[in-house]
């Protein structure tokens, strides 16, 4: 475990540096709080609403999809470190595993789980189709 000694020393040093900067700033900096200064930044507008606690669920989705790949990477590292000894068997096993993960990934992608953007072309095409089917022909194009 002695190999980790420099890392521990660096951790302590980094912590001391950060804490020291805060203490230094606490001693040197002025303290004149004001209601406007302490308010959330809103480009000068007085904030009325509470801070938002909601954000698009897609971000959670990305985090969940990431776990799939994280697990795959976790399995890839031991294989990568020992690939020389595992030989053909190892490669075929890992390729099989990657294939299973890939199928799951392709399923997710096909479900639109990772489509973020406006995907303009597709949306417009669907809108056009909808308009064509719902709006009487005379109205269109006027």
């Amino acid at each position, binding site marked *: 475990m002695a190999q980790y000694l420099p890392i521990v020393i660096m951790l302590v040093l980094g912590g001391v540096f950060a804490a020291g900067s805060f203490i*230094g700033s606490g001693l040197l900096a002025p303290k004149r709080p004001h209601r406007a200064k302490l308010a959330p930044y809103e480009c000068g507008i007085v904030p009325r609403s509470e801070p938002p606690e909601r954000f698009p669920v897609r971000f959670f989705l990305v985090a969940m999809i990431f776990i799939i790949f994280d697990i795959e990477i976790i399995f890839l590292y031991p294989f*990568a470190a020992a690939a020389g000894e595992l030989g053909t068997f190892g490669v075929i096993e890992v390729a099989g595993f990657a294939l299973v993960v890939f199928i799951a990934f392709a399923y997710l992608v096909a479900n639109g789980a990772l489509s*973020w953007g406006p995907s303009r072309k597709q949306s417009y095409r669907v809108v056009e189709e909808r308009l064509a089917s719902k709006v009487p022909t005379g109205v269109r194009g006027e």
Partner: protein
Amino acid sequence: MGSDLLLAGHLSLAVVLIVVVKVLVAFVALLVSVLLAIWIERKVISDMQNRIGPNRAGPWGLLQSLADGMKLFFKEDLVPERSDRFVFKLAPYLSVIPAFITFTLVPIGGSVDIFGHHTELQVADPPIGILLLIAMSSISVYGVMLAGWSSGSKYPLLGSVRASAQMISYEAAMGLSIASVVLITGSLSTRDMVTQQLGTFFGFIPHWNLIRLGIIPFVVFIIAITAEVNRPPFDLVEAEQELVGGFHTEYSSIRFALFYLAEYMNTITMSAIMVTMFFGGPDGPDPTFLHWLWPILWFLVKTAIFFVIYVWFRAALPRLRYDQLMDLGWKVLIPVSLAWILVIAAMRVSRPLGFALVLLGFLAALVLTRAISIGHERAGQARIQALPGEEINGDS
């Protein structure tokens, strides 16, 4: 396995002292290089934009970053009243400490003898090696996420959820491209990576992982870490037009300075890691005199080149849109790096198996392309269905 011979035997006081000195030197060197890096970035960007840039503090404005840093000590340190005070104060630590720790992995030169002890010019060479980099980059996601969440304000929150989604997305691609380096090295230690890259092909082409692995892992890695450290063109975290300052909008004074410091330290460390993994680290021509100096010099030159390339990215490339960013990360970089590592692994075992996997890769690419187009269609349809009825029906 990696291990510094210095720490292999009995831990005497002299050994601990040498370790402390090494850590201190690395620490100071990193801080000084951050000051220089900020100056270089500002100067190079100014030159590229036909400006002069900082030129008042010190010769050629060299001391500008130091002056800025000192100024920030004298600025009022605000903690917004709606913030979660403990987490708000914790976040800069989570950002800056991993940045320091990652740097310990980088082999700066060969090995030297100090006071009768043989040691490597590298702060730490633990058996987990490069995994420490992945661990630390995961922890720095917490720094960004918690900073934005605890501010109690909308722009930091949006900036931080974006940042964390972006960073974990590209972390997968980064992990896969590092795995290919581990595969060809057969070890996780950064020192082993460097020693494996010594020598040449046919006497003149350097035996670097860049060439041994094909260019693709390197390209994936440079894109992934640019996103990982939130540098332009992937700096959606702090897209000024949309998010004011991003996750550190509410941070002022020295707390802001620490985030800024962490960003530049990460950039420098990642340049150094890239040199270590793909460009032979301290490898280079070695004239017969001053054997200890040349590797350090080569390492510094290569790292500086990569840092300037980052600056160049910033000056030359416009920022990506969020969906482009996500598409690039998930639908291009991850599948490509995954397929490439399998092909490398198979090629090492046997050629026929390798070509079989190349074929499989093309097949997978076709499947994925089809899946992407289906996905776009479904997402588009879902969006259309979510629209209010009258907008679709028009005036009819």
